[in-house]
């Protein structure tokens, strides 16, 4: 697998700008960070921290192949570490933007700089981190810190926010982590290409969140390819790989019978999913409100879109980035359940109230859960778009100019 497909030009100063905006939008987070500082002082024993870590690890991407890599430990003594890790459960819990930032800022990211090349590294800090990543339950870890934490929150469009960060001297397991059988299998087989191992875990019931951690820790793939994968890249890589696997399974499936319109709203993002009969085609169109975190300066909506035909795409998406693969996964999972293919248009409106990015899991769960509940039916795709248009903040002309599917649906030669 070529990881550089997932690298794009996300500038550091843009990240700082987003954080500033998010902070302006909610001073509550800043207040909360003060509380966290106090709580942290109580939790620290000398310069070490003992406790349960969330079954989630964080690998930075700046400086690749020398990256900052960390374990995430909740600082509340009685906290259930499991709930601090990004998962599909966060949707069911109905978390808001503030809840996510609060939860994540209550976790210390103890980091060390490491080389990404980790084939066979199972000792030291990186070894401990890898054990945490492949375990299916929170693991007790003792972390020795090299300095006092820096209290801040980092936000990003793809990764879940991370909270205070401190440099770690060392990290030691205080118990034997439990590693599920299928993960052991992918770990032991160092002749198994990463894509195959990822889809194997998916088929064995692991959600993309867990697979993402395992990939990030460099615990699957062919031996000589095993390395730490920056969280941002691994999230997209897993969504893309599992999506391709599901799409492959639908190549010869029947198509949906009618045009269906599904909707959802989650964390001030509104979703419309239109499924129409025909060979697989997918498009994500994002409408970003002016003055939202993603479109801070503009006076009008910013539109972004990416599209693929029956055979998928060859290049990385220029626009919409990780959200594309997350939304596509949600749609493909639904279609795979029904064993049907379809032409799928996902429209995502990002309102001004979405005041801080919480990561691309929000898009994945927003789309996955759009398929619960009722759907609307239309005679034709065109009629569905006509009905949808008045609910959108942009004109139909703008939508048509930005969307391949709205402009026209691809037919096949046998249709004539």
């Amino acid at each position, binding site marked *: 697998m070529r990881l550089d497909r997932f690298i794009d030009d996300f500038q550091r100063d843009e990240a700082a700008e987003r954080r500033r905006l998010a902070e302006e939008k909610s001073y509550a987070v800043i207040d909360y960070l003060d509380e966290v500082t106090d709580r942290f002082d109580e939790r620290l024993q000398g310069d070490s921290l003992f406790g349960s870590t969330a079954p989630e690890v964080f690998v930075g991407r700046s400086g690749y192949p020398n990256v900052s890599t960390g374990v995430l430990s909740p600082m509340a003594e009685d906290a259930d570490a499991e709930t601090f890790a990004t998962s599909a459960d966060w949707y069911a819990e109905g978390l808001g933007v503030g809840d996510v930032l609060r939860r994540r800022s209550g976790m210390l990211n103890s980091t060390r700089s490491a080389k990404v090349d980790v084939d066979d590294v199972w000792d030291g800090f990186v070894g401990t981190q890898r054990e945490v990543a492949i375990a299916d339950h929170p693991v007790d870890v003792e972390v020795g810190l090299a300095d006092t934490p820096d209290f801040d929150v980092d936000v990003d469009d793809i990764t879940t926010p991370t909270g205070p960060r401190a440099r770690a001297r060392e990290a030691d397991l205080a118990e034997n982590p439990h590693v599920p059988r299928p993960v052991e299998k992918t770990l032991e087989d160092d002749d198994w290409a990463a894509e195959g191992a990822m889809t194997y875990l998916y088929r064995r019931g692991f959600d993309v969140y867990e697979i993402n951690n395992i990939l990030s820790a460099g615990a699957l793939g062919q031996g000589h390819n095993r390395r730490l994968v920056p969280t941002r890249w691994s999230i997209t890589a897993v969504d893309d790989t599992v999506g391709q696997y599901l799409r492959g399974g639908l190549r010869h499936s029947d198509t949906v019978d009618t045009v269906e319109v599904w909707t959802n709203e989650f964390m001030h993002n509104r979703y419309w999913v239109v499924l129409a009969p025909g060979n697989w085609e997918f498009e994500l169109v994002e409408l970003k409100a002016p003055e939202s975190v993603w479109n801070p300066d503009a006076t009008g909506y910013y539109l972004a879109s990416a599209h693929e035909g029956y055979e998928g795409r060859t290049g990385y998406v220029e626009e919409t980035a990780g959200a594309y693969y997350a939304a596509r996964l949600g749609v493909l999972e639904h279609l795979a359940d029904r064993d049907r293919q379809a032409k799928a248009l996902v429209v995502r409106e990002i309102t001004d109230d979405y005041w801080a990015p919480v990561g691309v899991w929000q898009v994945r769960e927003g789309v996955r859960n759009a398929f619960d509940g009722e759907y609307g039916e239309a005679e034709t795709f*065109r009629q569905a778009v006509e009905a949808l248009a008045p609910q959108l903040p942009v004109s139909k002309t703008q939508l048509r100019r930005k969307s391949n599917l709205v402009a026209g*649906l691809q037919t096949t*030669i046998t249709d004539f």
Partner: protein
Amino acid sequence: MFNAIVSADTLRTTLDSVSVLVDECKIHLEADGLAIQAVDPANVGMVDLSLSADAFESYEADGGVIGVNLSRLEDIAGMAEADQLVHLELDEETRKLHISIDGLEYTLALIDPDSIRQEPDLPDLDLAAEIVIEGRDIDRAVTAADMVSDHIALGVDEAGEFFYVDAEGDTDDVHLELTREDLIDLVVGPAHSLFSLDYLQDMNKAIPKDAEVTMELGEEFPVKMHFDIAEGKGSVTYLLAPRIQSD
């Protein structure tokens, strides 16, 4: 039985016009020449090619079918200078194709034709408008449209009696009008259809700039593009399904 000698140039032109759509194809080795029909995996683009025995320096065949990996065969043909001759001979026993170019021998393993996708029949279309246009004008339209959009509309203005090309992007537009004088010929009829540029670009790559292309168009119907290769001793027809707006 198949034994033929052909110029590298003719062989490459033939292979290129098919490989823009598919990776593998069946070649029908008829007594009077070879024929290829192929459709891309998405069933959107189709090619129908024939190359008469006259296009070869020598040609002998008795109606067999072989399956080939096009990029392999193209690579081998690429080893020859344009005016060099390529000798192709089928070994019926081993089901391999022996290719020799000026002393260079290459044995190409063939693919079981039954494992290659069955091509659909060329649909019988009644397309009202016919435009005869130079290959370089298609190239110009496709290149300009690609600057602004992923799709392109082709149509005929019946009142104004001209062929037009439209591309609408996020913010920018491209429009091209070609009147009867700019074209080689024009039969006016109701025609307007939208096409994916990805496909049209691929087909455009295989259309010689100086070719006379006969384009047949309808209202939200596939476009048919027909042109000659090998100095009129071969012909290629592309069919491309539209993106439709009315459904």
